[in-house]
């Protein structure tokens, strides 16, 4: 994992993140751990994380049109962005949140 910290304008705003998981599954646990690490490395405490366990109430998936678990939703700053998966690739999270330019022709990792 890179320790390079790339601050963008986005990183200066307050971030509101919502992570959808499904019980104590390995990917859900990994997603929580990876999200906490990402926030600690890139967001300097300017964030709130809400974790929603769809195992308790699958209907909540409709709220953010969730199709797969785990999914991370960035509610703020706009635009709303979704990243599906266990967030194990920090690069993909950075690209997904426009914190790093997309690489055309590569796999983005």
């Amino acid at each position, binding site marked *: 994992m890179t320790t390079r910290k790339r601050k963008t304008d986005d990183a200066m705003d307050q971030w509101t993140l919502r992570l959808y998981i*499904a*019980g*104590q*599954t*390995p*990917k*859900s*646990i990994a997603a929580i751990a990876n999200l906490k690490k990402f926030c600690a490395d890139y967001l300097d405490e300017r964030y709130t994380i809400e974790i929603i366990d*769809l*195992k308790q109430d*699958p*209907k909540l*998936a*409709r709220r953010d049109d*969730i*199709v*797969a*678990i*785990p999914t991370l939703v960035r509610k703020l700053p706009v*635009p*709303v*962005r*979704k*990243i*599906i*998966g*266990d967030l*194990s*690739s920090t690069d*993909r999270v950075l690209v*997904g949140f*426009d914190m790093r*330019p*997309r*690489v*055309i*022709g*590569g*796999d*983005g990792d």
Partner: protein
Amino acid sequence: MTELPIARNPRRRTTDLAERVREHESLVRALQGGEVDAVVVLEPDGAKLQHLTTDEPLYRTIVDTLPQGVATVLADGTITYINQHLADSIGMPPATLLGANLAGYVATGDVATFVDTLHAALDAPQEVGMTFLWAHGEGPVLVSASRLPVDGVDALGLVIVDLRDRLARTAAEEESRSKDELLASVSHEMRTPLTSIMGWVQLIEFELGSDHHLGDAIRNLKNAVLAEAKIVDDLLDLARAEKGSLSIVTREFDLCESLRNAASYVNQQAQAKSLALHCELPGEPVIVRGDPDRLRQVFVNLLSNALKFTDAGSIHVRCGIDDAYATIEVTDSGIGIKADYLPMVFEPFWRSERAKPYPGLGIGLAITRRLVEAHGGTIAVSSDGPGRGATFTVKVPLA
């Protein structure tokens, strides 16, 4: 490979489309990379989760390593799963026990009831329990059996708890509790007559007048009663602390006040032993939230302790602020503490060999620690060794 910034189209429709493409890309990547463990299946009146991977491995690990016996069996007692703890109780590896009949390891006298219990559990709406001994003679153990939701198969989940540990623990807790109760009631019974003696002594003192030839005798009697009352009060406090019912009335106050108060209280004692008592207090008030009387008691205990174990030299009291804490240090030049004994000094009734010639029961520091902890603070002790004094450091959160 070319790097391009994200194309931002001012027209909203295109932006929405781009977002959706992004999202689909993200889904495909996550699915291909095995990062997804469930998908959401929408239904007319809600949604459900379709798990691609299961959470079984995690629960399995928890059950495998649980320090209680767990097994699943068929209606006749055939073991379909057994955890390590239960296998250890029986004395065989789990792999050997798989497929064996659990009833075969139950003491002969208990087998019939054990088999009946399994059958009863199949039809019971909730778990059914019994106690039995193992065939190798150990136990008793408590089994509780409940029907498992497995289609077309009569299966049971068993939780087996060893009652020996529990019985032993209950006996130990009972013994400890009765000791605390004895301590509390004895201390209380001792305190009542002391109050009465003190009342009569004061009456005699008043009647005779201070210049009576028995004046010294009366003063000595009073001091002896006060000393006795202090010991009994300490015992009562210790008994209350053990029960978790120390009374603490909190408010915001200046800690320096308490320190000055405690220092002047023990000053006479210091003068009697020709010891210098130095206080270094900050000019500003140090405001904490706590019980001023109880914290004064902490400082009186620490200062009395320092004075008791110091025959020459001086006692230093320092108060400062360290982050969110008020830090108070009481340093003496007394008999010091061996490094091995440092962890024991706050234990009730503990006294080192070298402390034996000095009066006391060994409860002052035990109470002190409990009082400090009741304030959300900490207390620590350090010493350079025998004959080289000791320092007690108290930290109490600032208000």
